[in-house]
């Protein structure tokens, strides 16, 4: 069964501060909502120790500028109900090639 994803209010404010183009913002939503929840064990990289959570990283090319790559990483915890993934932190940078 796919997991549910929840996001900390702080991460929400952080995403807002990134000023992402609409298509990229929708893609982030898609990745967290549909990609991550399918076999999260294959998507997540472990941190150092159980209290440090897991990490989900992905990149995407800007559809309006193919030389711009948007790179993301999110810290994610499994909830004890084993049905929920909680996103607790996130980092973003755009790179130009």
């Amino acid at each position, binding site marked *: 069964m796919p997991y*549910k*994803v*929840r*996001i*900390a*209010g*702080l991460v*929400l404010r*952080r*995403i*807002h*501060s990134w000023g992402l183009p*609409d*298509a*990229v*913002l*929708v*893609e*982030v*939503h*898609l*990745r*967290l*909502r*549909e*990609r991550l929840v399918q076999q999260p064990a294959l998507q997540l*990289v472990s*941190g*150092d120790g159980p*209290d*440090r*959570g897991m*990490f989900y*990283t*992905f*990149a*995407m*090319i*800007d*559809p309006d500028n193919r030389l711009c*790559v948007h*790179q*993301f*990483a999110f*810290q994610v*915890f499994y*909830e*004890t109900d084993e049905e929920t993934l*909680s*996103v*607790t*932190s*996130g*980092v*973003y*940078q755009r790179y130009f090639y």
Partner: protein
Amino acid sequence: MMSTTVLYQISSEYVEAVRRAYEGWRGVSPEGRRAQDLPDLIRACLEFPAAAQRLHDSYYDQMLLFGNTHWTELGESLLAVVAEMLALQKAVLELEPVVAEQRGNGWNQLCEAQRSLEELREKVRDLWPWAKTYTAEELRAATQGGDFRDVDDAFAELMGVDQETLLKRLEEHKRRYHPRQGVDRDAV
């Protein structure tokens, strides 16, 4: 760990070298100080904002491109270096009245450099991706405390639309960018 990056070492050693120069400068008599190369010490401090920004960018690369998951430690390490830089700048700026004689040799720029560093420090404090540590109990308490939002609610709020519009946009996005289903890595 994170403090072994080349740029961290360069930044730390640079600050230390300037500190030694400063201490040496203070060690001489007030009369002798005028003969010392104070403008050179000021110019060295002017490099701090650029050095701190390079370290900041390097840490972002560490987190995003090289899989370093010690986000909090990296941020703390950066703030520690910036704090040392600011303390040294402040110390140099307080070298009145001798510095006052050097205002034409970088003193004003040093005030500006100090403001730049303070801005970087505030940016890091506000926007750094501080990674949380949670025990299962702490995470449960945060959940019950209402710290988390459903992903659809959250993005609907971010985009300023209702859920129906949000899901329509999502489907439209998938048709446009992922017509063959699934999400291709590196391509929106």
